[in-house]
């Protein structure tokens, strides 16, 4: 069932199109990541959904109801802000109880709910603290507790983990995902980090220059990118003609095999002569950079690179044409 329908949203700033006819349907309980380079319009899209900005054209529907004209306080969603935006003049408990209070609950009941939400993010012991006296990770959790305490149907998260160090970030990724599954809340999660998006999402929406390029499950995005932009933005890609000449397809580096000159290819494979331009060995995988005529290719495999694979050597690059995915399909 569609929870949020983003319907043909366009938004310009002084003639510059920050959002360009974006249409996206999000189902109840989904974890969607918005992924794209800086300035592609992720925050703008989130702010339009939250109601901090009005689109020039298009509609936002939540549960079938057009909320485009509603102010933020009347939209059934909550936001985790990138800088957390915790109220500095309130304790952690007061911060989290703010939402239930606005929903009309009495102080005692609101605080009970707040304690519950703090429990959920593992901060029950810190409810009397001032947010300023907490670490970045703890503030992050307070912001999360504050946003889920009212049990919204939809939670918007704008790069919530970007200020955390790598280890904490990995842990929070797991906790966030668990929380999302446990509460059944729909998440729209903005990130710069494609690994993060790949690891957490049901679907990834890739944006570029205000346009939605593709929205699909992580493996579909990786295996069957629809545009050259998506193919290059998610992981690494080789572009090869589909059959000899004509339109190009995407071949992922792990599907490209480097074989010695003259060795027979597996049946049905295609091969092309290439020259090794560089070899690296990082984190248990080896990357072999190749030049096939004007084309630059990358082949990746587990383990050490084959012996004698040095720059300047002439080899053949082979692949199964079934792994060559046509763009635009």
């Amino acid at each position, binding site marked *: 069932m569609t929870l949020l329908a983003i319907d043909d949203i366009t938004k310009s700033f002084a003639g510059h199109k920050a959002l360009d006819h974006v249409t996206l349907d999000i189902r109840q309980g989904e974890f969607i990541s918005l992924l794209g380079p800086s300035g592609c319009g992720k925050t703008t899209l989130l702010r339009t959904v*939250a*109601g*901090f900005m009005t689109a020039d054209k298009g509609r936002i529907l939540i549960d079938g109801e057009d909320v485009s004209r509603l*102010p*933020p*306080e009347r939209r059934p969603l*909550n*936001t985790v*802000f990138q*800088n957390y*935006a*915790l*109220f*500095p*003049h*309130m*304790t952690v408990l007061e911060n989290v109880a*703010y*939402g239930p209070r*606005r*929903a009309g609950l009495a102080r005692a009941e609101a605080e009970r709910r707040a304690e519950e939400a703090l429990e959920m993010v593992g901060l029950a012991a810190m409810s009397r603290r*001032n947010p*300023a006296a907490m670490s970045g990770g703890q503030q992050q959790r307070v912001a999360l507790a*504050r*946003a889920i305490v*009212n049990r919204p149907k939809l939670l918007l998260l704008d790069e919530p983990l970007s200020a955390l160090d790598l280890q904490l970030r990995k842990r929070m990724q797991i906790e966030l995902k668990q929380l999302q599954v446990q509460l059944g809340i729909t998440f729209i999660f903005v990130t710069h980090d494609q690994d993060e998006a790949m690891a957490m999402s049901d679907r990834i929406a890739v944006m570029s220059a205000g346009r939605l390029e593709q929205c699909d499950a992580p493996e579909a995005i990786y295996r069957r990118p629809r545009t050259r932009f998506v193919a290059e933005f998610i992981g690494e890609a080789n572009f090869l003609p589909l059959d000899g000449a004509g339109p190009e397809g995407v071949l992922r580096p792990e599907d490209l095999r480097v074989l010695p000159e003259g060795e027979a290819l597996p049946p049905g494979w295609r091969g092309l002569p290439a020259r090794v331009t560089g070899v690296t060995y990082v984190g248990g995988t080896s990357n072999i950079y190749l030049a096939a005529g004007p084309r630059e290719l990358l082949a990746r495999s587990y383990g050490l690179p084959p012996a004698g694979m040095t720059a300047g050597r002439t080899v053949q690059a082979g692949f199964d044409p079934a792994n060559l995915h046509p763009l635009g399909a």
Partner: protein
Amino acid sequence: MASARLTLFWLLALPVLVFTGFFLIPLGVVLVSSFTAPEDGLTLAHYARILLDAYHWQVIATTFRIAIFSTLICVALGYPLAWYLVRIVQLRSWRRACVILLVLPLFTSNIVRSFGWMVLLGRSGLVNDALMSLGLIDRPMRFLGTETGILIGMVYILLPFTVLTIGTALARVDRGLEQAARDLGATPARAFWSVTFPLTLHGVMAGAIIVFSMAISAYVTPALLSGGKVTVLAMLAFQQYSTVFDFHYGGALSITLLVLTLALIGLASRMTRGRTPGAGGH
């Protein structure tokens, strides 16, 4: 090492000396003279003369009334003005122009500005002309010689202080906080009163204290705009010094003013501190 310690000594000693020389000694002189009389040494007679007399209490009441109303009006007008400057004006050059316009009067003499208001507030002054031509009144109002007239002059002179202190506080409030409040279900008014206002309260208090202490000790503006019909404590004290040459009684008036002022400011800041828990560091 020794020279470093000497430098440190002077660094600490100089401010102490200046502070003592310019503030404590004059204050001490006034304090001592307020408790003494030329004939019989130590005495409370001057204070008794003030505190046991209805006329003095009336003057004290007038003084505080004018100061409190000046403060309230300056805050009530200063907040929206600060809001306009910080939140609404987009053009940086226009904002700068507004700030200059606001501070410029502070560089001209108090006397000149008060004379200006005397002209404006007179029976056929600009203010009455405007009110009449707008049809709001049909006979000229009397401003000069009333507390209203004095209030207008005071607010005009003191308003910049609240605009500046509140504006500074407002500019430091992260607007994301208001959005967070809205996101959590607060109406714009709610978001203002529960988030923005408490976070600017220290600016409001700073402005209010400046305005209040300047208003309560103001002499020139009340003296010029009162037309001799309204008396405030500072005028009374000045008369004692300048015409009667009674330094003892005048000193007692000044100290009374000082003590009452400090008491009121202390009370006010304690009250606001109680209402914003945890706001200390912001």
